[in-house]
């Protein structure tokens, strides 16, 4: 792996357990030039020692969490075409550092074309740092989704691409620059052309808000779809003669060697723990923890805006105002990781990978993100044994620290 800028300072994190190769190892973590450094190479080739040692007090060092579905937070709504979208994104990017998130995909829910045309160009891909978590690209969830399974998405703005397939999609969004993930329903006419075109452009296609059966879902995967948006929510329920999209987890009709990833909101509300366990046990390596957080994240009880609608927050649950329809989660990523660990009884390593390695693999970034392998970006979190975030690092720089940990 890349040894970073040779002249730069070498930082050695000692007295810690690092997540590497799927295991928590008693190893030191070495960093230089914003990347993870191979200390053996440094020792034998450059014949150097560390410039600075930091004692981690026996804590866990894990790759920084990656949230590929987050609609806003702290009062900011990514789907609102404000005059200064950039500051809203920056605010969220900075505040989620305390949740252990070092990279994220700002998500836009179903909106009219004017909103996409105004907002999308204002949210560029951006590296993280002391200013906040890095933006990996946008997640456009909708408007090409099922009417029946729209959930909290506004019916008035749903669209189809039956007429001109990909051109319709491009016209709706305005541009695909800055876009990383698109969620759509594969049962919509001409979806396969659209999926193929998006995949060819390096955009991750996700299946969600759909009434597709298993066969349609499998065909979509063959066309390039790689992700399932919040499994179980906004799709047909599992049926033993047609498992629907859920059946992708154990389908034997997928391209060989392809791993299907699926988002799960492990906030204690969106998925019953038993259902969480079924999915996890069926296909642990594909599980991606997402927050699907709404602007009310971090704000507390009351009424707030999401896309073109109003939501009501009550404790850890948010509903479309006046209904019983879940509107999105307000559980921070580290809460999701802890809840996932506790609900599934899985290993700490797997819980951490579900929030870091798996989303990185989904986006094809696993060489630089979601891992503490040599050469990867030094984006990591310091956790205590109960997985509470004590400190967050981006490119080897401390960007957030818990009050108790401050000296």
């Amino acid at each position, binding site marked *: 792996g890349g040894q970073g800028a040779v002249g730069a300072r070498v930082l050695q994190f000692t007295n810690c357990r690092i997540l590497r190769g799927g295991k928590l190892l008693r190893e*030191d973590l070495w960093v230089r030039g914003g990347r993870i450094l191979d*200390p*053996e*190479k*440094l*020792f*034998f080739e*450059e*014949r150097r*020692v560390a410039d600075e040692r930091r004692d981690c007090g026996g804590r866990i060092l894990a790759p920084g969490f990656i949230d590929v579905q987050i609609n806003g937070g702290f009062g900011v709504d990514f789907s609102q075409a404000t005059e200064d979208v950039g500051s809203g994104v920056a605010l969220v990017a900075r505040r989620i550092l305390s949740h252990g998130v070092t990279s994220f995909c700002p998500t836009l829910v179903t909106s009219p074309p004017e909103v996409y045309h105004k907002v999308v160009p204002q949210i560029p891909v951006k590296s993280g740092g002391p200013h906040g978590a890095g933006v990996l690209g946008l997640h456009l969830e909708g408007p090409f989704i099922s009417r029946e399974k729209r959930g909290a998405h506004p019916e008035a703005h749903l669209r189809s691409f039956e007429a001109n397939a990909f051109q319709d999609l491009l016209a709706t969004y305005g541009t695909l620059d800055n876009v990383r993930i698109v969620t759509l329903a594969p049962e919509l006419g001409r979806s396969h052309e659209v999926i193929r075109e998006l995949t060819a452009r390096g955009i991750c296609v996700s299946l969600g808000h759909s009434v597709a059966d298993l066969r349609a879902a499998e065909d979509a995967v063959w066309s390039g779809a790689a992700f399932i948006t919040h499994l179980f929510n906004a799709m047909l329920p599992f049926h033993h003669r047609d498992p629907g999209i859920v059946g992708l987890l154990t389908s034997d009709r997928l391209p060989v060697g392809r791993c299907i990833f699926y988002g799960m909101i492990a906030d204690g509300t969106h998925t019953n723990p038993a259902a969480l366990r079924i999915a996890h046990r069926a296909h642990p390596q594909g599980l991606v923890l997402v927050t699907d957080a709404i602007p009310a994240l971090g704000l507390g009880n009351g009424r707030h805006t999401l896309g073109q609608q109003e939501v009501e927050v009550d404790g850890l649950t948010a509903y479309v105002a006046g209904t019983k329809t879940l509107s999105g989660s307000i559980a921070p990523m580290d809460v999701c990781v802890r809840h996932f660990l506790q609900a599934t009884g899985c290993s700490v390593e797997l819980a951490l990978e579900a929030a870091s390695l798996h989303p990185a693999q989904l986006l094809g970034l696993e060489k630089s993100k979601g891992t503490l392998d040599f050469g990867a970006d030094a984006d990591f979190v310091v956790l205590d044994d109960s997985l509470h975030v004590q400190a967050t690092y981006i490119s080897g720089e401390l960007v957030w620290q818990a009050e108790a940990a401050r000296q």
Partner: protein
Amino acid sequence: MKLIILDHYSQASEWAAKYIRNRIIQFNPGPEKYFTLGLPTGSTPLGCYKKLIEYYKNGDLSFKYVKTFNMDEYVGLPRDHPESYHSFMWNNFFKHIDIHPENTHILDGNAVDLQAECDAFEEKIKAAGGIELFVGGIGPDGHIAFNEPGSSLVSRTRVKTLAMDTILANARFFDGELTKVPTMALTVGVGTVMDAREVMILITGAHKAFALYKAIEEGVNHMWTVSAFQQHPRTVFVCDEDATLELKVKTVKYFKVPPQVNRKGYIYSTSFGI
């Protein structure tokens, strides 16, 4: 020679580590006076390395003024291969202690000119003032380092072809596949180790018993190169009970004296606390 016989592998490892520790402390190394230590690899010294690391972590021992010279390295194996001796030393010793990388010396099995690399190694040892204590092991064929049967007893650092016994013994580190084991190595010579002011050989396990017998109860013979140390003024053999299985009862009794027996000069026993 001294023959130190401990009951088990762990005690032999601890005895050896304490001996090294005490020698370094008594030497009192400093920036003008480094302690030069020759080091082995393999499964035998692992316990000893663990103990030395423990002494460093306890604050009892520092390697700041210690220079190390490893005995050997495979030819043609990438330095970062998990079975290279560089990897062994990094993972089992160097990364856990406070030694400066510039004070460590391991032969480069990927050097363009292998013999020049060996000659340079001899020069480095000379420049460091010679080896104060050379720690080594013994192969099942009685070799020291990679000085295979038939090696000159006055040999220097050079390229050696590995014997079949050695390749077989090392196959377990290469998934049991003989074809994956390197066939050549760079090694210090018997003469190189003989130049050290003191030599300590670690021998544990029943599979080394015959080699130990040949090394100390038979004559000096280039077929069992460890036997050369019969002619070194200051050698310590540290072993466990199993390694003594091929020795005469008389030999073992001579060296493993029960504590209540007094003899003139040194008393060697398992209760001899060093």
